[in-house]
């Protein structure tokens, strides 16, 4: 009944992404909007289908509602298949009780049955934290050629940043001889991208062993990979060059959005041979009104622009009224920037209204801090939100009451 698949992808999408603060209050990090019409999870999902992988398990745990709804039957990514396709895999109750996913490895362990139904040769472990385009079929080819047990995608990072990553030290053939998690004195600059391709049997063996190891953190980086290295298994690094960005913090999310701008953007979304797919609402084209000024911006469907937009990324259904200014900002779905208001160096979550003459965010002399306004906040006319401040609806109400009392 189940058609055999060469490779099944497992996408870890259960993380909270707590460093995105109010943006992940109600949604898991992979469902965070990015780049005008996407969500973070569109990137690994599109990579899968563009690489010929049509069976993807999405492991959810934290606030899965928006994510479940978004993935739906997988149709936008061509993952609505009669055999395979995309499947959401939440933690479940079994004969021996119910358990949350304790760690990345445990999440996969709990879904070994799902994987084995397709009898795959390889299992690709992905995370929903990064913006990148990658053809996984090249990774699979390299894995086969080297008869590896595990192949880990790595990217060359500047040596001064290497201590923020898991570093893979390899021999001349690319075989991993040592793995260091966030080393103080990195020996190389091969940073793990959190993309692991396992031969199925090796994965099963080590997951079961790890599950039976008391005190294990059940984590791929901390437990599985070191254990395999210890046993002299064949682990290889697969070098990736190209755009790859972690969007786990407010600053990096803002930076990654800014990377889409410019004459030759650092990250180009207009690649027709490697499209990024997304679930889009049926909205009319955007309208740029008379007297508006739009420079260096990414703008999508359903927007009405009558004011000034510069160096910004605007999601669908955004209105910028005449006399309003949006600069160096990320404005998510359905926001309205009223006349005379200014939004700069900021991220507005969806359905935010910025009242007349209000000012959100400011330019900093030193390190640029990004102001964040949470879902559904109505910024009062004339109010100002300073650089780096963050508000959700409750916090914003509190701030205003505080102001009145003072």
């Amino acid at each position, binding site marked *: 009944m189940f058609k055999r698949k060469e490779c099944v992808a497992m996408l870890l999408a259960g993380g909270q992404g707590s460093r995105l603060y109010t943006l992940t209050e109600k949604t898991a990090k992979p469902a965070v909007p990015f780049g005008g*019409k996407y969500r973070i999870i569109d990137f690994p999902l599109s990579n899968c289908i563009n690489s010929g992988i049509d069976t993807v398990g999405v492991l959810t745990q934290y606030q899965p509602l928006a994510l479940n709804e978004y993935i739906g039957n997988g149709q936008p990514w061509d993952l609505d298949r009669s055999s395979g396709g995309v499947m959401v895999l939440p933690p479940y109750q079994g004969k021996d009780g119910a358990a949350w996913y304790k760690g990345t490895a445990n999440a996969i362990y709990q879904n070994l049955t799902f994987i084995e139904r397709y009898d795959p040769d390889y299992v690709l472990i992905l995370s929903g934290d990064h913006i990148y385009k990658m053809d996984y079929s090249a990774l699979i080819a390299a894995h086969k050629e080297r008869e590896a047990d595990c192949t880990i995608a790595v990217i060359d990072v500047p040596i001064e940043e290497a201590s923020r990553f898991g570093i893979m030290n390899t021999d001349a053939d690319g075989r991993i001889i040592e793995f260091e998690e966030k080393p103080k004195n990195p020996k190389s600059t091969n940073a793990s991208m959190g993309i692991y391709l396992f031969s199925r049997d090796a994965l099963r063996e080590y997951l079961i062993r790890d599950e039976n190891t008391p005190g294990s953190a059940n984590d791929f980086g901390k437990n599985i990979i070191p254990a395999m290295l210890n046993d002299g298994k064949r682990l290889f690094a697969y070098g990736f060059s190209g755009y790859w960005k972690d969007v786990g913090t407010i600053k990096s999310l803002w930076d990654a959005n800014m990377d889409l701008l410019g004459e030759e953007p650092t990250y180009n*979304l207009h690649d027709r041979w490697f499209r990024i797919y997304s679930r889009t609402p049926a909205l009319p084209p955007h*309208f*740029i009104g008379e007297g508006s000024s739009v*420079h*260096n911006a990414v*703008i999508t*469907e359903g927007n009405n622009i009558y004011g000034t937009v510069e160096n910004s990324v605007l999601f669908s259904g955004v209105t910028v009224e005449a006399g309003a200014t949006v600069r160096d900002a990320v404005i998510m779905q359905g926001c309205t920037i009223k006349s005379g208001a200014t939004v700069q160096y900021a991220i507005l979550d969806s359905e935010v209204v910025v009242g007349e003459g209000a000012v959100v965010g400011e330019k900093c002399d030193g390190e640029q801090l990004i102001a964040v306004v949470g879902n559904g906040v109505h910024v009062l006319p004339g109010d100002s939100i300073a650089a780096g401040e963050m508000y959700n609806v409750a916090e914003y109400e509190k701030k205003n009451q505080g102001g009145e009392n003072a």
Partner: protein
Amino acid sequence: MNAAGIIFSNIHDKNIADLTKKRTMASVPFGCRYRLVDFPLSNMVNSGITDISIITHYNYLSLMEHIGSGKDWDLARRSGGVRILAPYITAYANYKNELYNTRLEALMSVQHSISKMQADYVVLSDCDGICNIDLKDMIRAHEESGAVLTMAVKRIPITPTNAEKNIIVSSDENGEITDLAVHPTFYDKAVADVNINVWVISRSFLLGALVNAQAHGYTSFSQDIIRRSIGREKMRIYRFEGYYANIDSITDYYNYSMELIRNSTVRHDLFDNAKRPILTKVRNSAPAQYTGSAKVSNSLVADGCIIEGTVENSILFRGVKVGKGSVVRNSILFMDTYVGENVSLNCVIADKYVLFHDDVTLSGHPELPFCVEKGRSL
């Protein structure tokens, strides 16, 4: 919904021959990211009709590519959904070894499909009229009145030039049709109700009419069926109050397109109805990209565009590129038009994949926009 839909894709092809050389009227691009068929199709879907047939005649490749499985309209169904009725041998409906020419002949050729439908009512719609109409309300009115045919009409001012382009419908105080003036060369009233080619018909009446038409060799639905039934059958009008545009010529096409830019009420009426969105094929283009040298005003821009130059009063479909130093004014550029550097365009309609090399200058006139055919390189 107890209704099925039939859309005529070719009937008005000759109206805008420049744009229908290689496509049906139904698949003519309109409104920055839509095709004309999206309007009747979305109207039907938004009213709960999920069994829709599109009658084609010729040139229907682009239409088939646009519709695909119908999933973008939520019409990829096990039961019902959307299907294209291409002509086959019985399409020689008038027994003269010719393909059908009229609406009635087209319907006769798909008589078998109509007889197999489950619905009590059939909604017929053409593709030359652009509107966002609540068909649910119209079908309800049809059902409640017990009429066999309800014809949507729009009240418009009549001028000497537009009378003969229209079918003028007269009705009594109960809304019952009393007369039909089919393309009259002279009409003496200042305003009149005109047929907008959206009809609700009871299926049993339609099947009876088709049998009759075959027996008597009728060819015109309005002349032979409706006019002969006046006074014998209950036929009513349904006055449509919203925005309606009829594409009758390339100038019409251009003017109605420009109206989308000039008039925000029109845009609002057509597109901003949360309950009745106009749906279209999803192309998964990236959002539009404006560079630092972009200067855009009063324009509709679709996703996938890259703008480095100046764009004014124009409509840019998906995937258009406007290079540095180029100026695009009062123009409509279809999908994937490539405008090089220092190009100047004014009152131009560029069909798909047109390539304007650097330094080209081209201008039409608002009354006579310059059409560049699909795939031309200038």
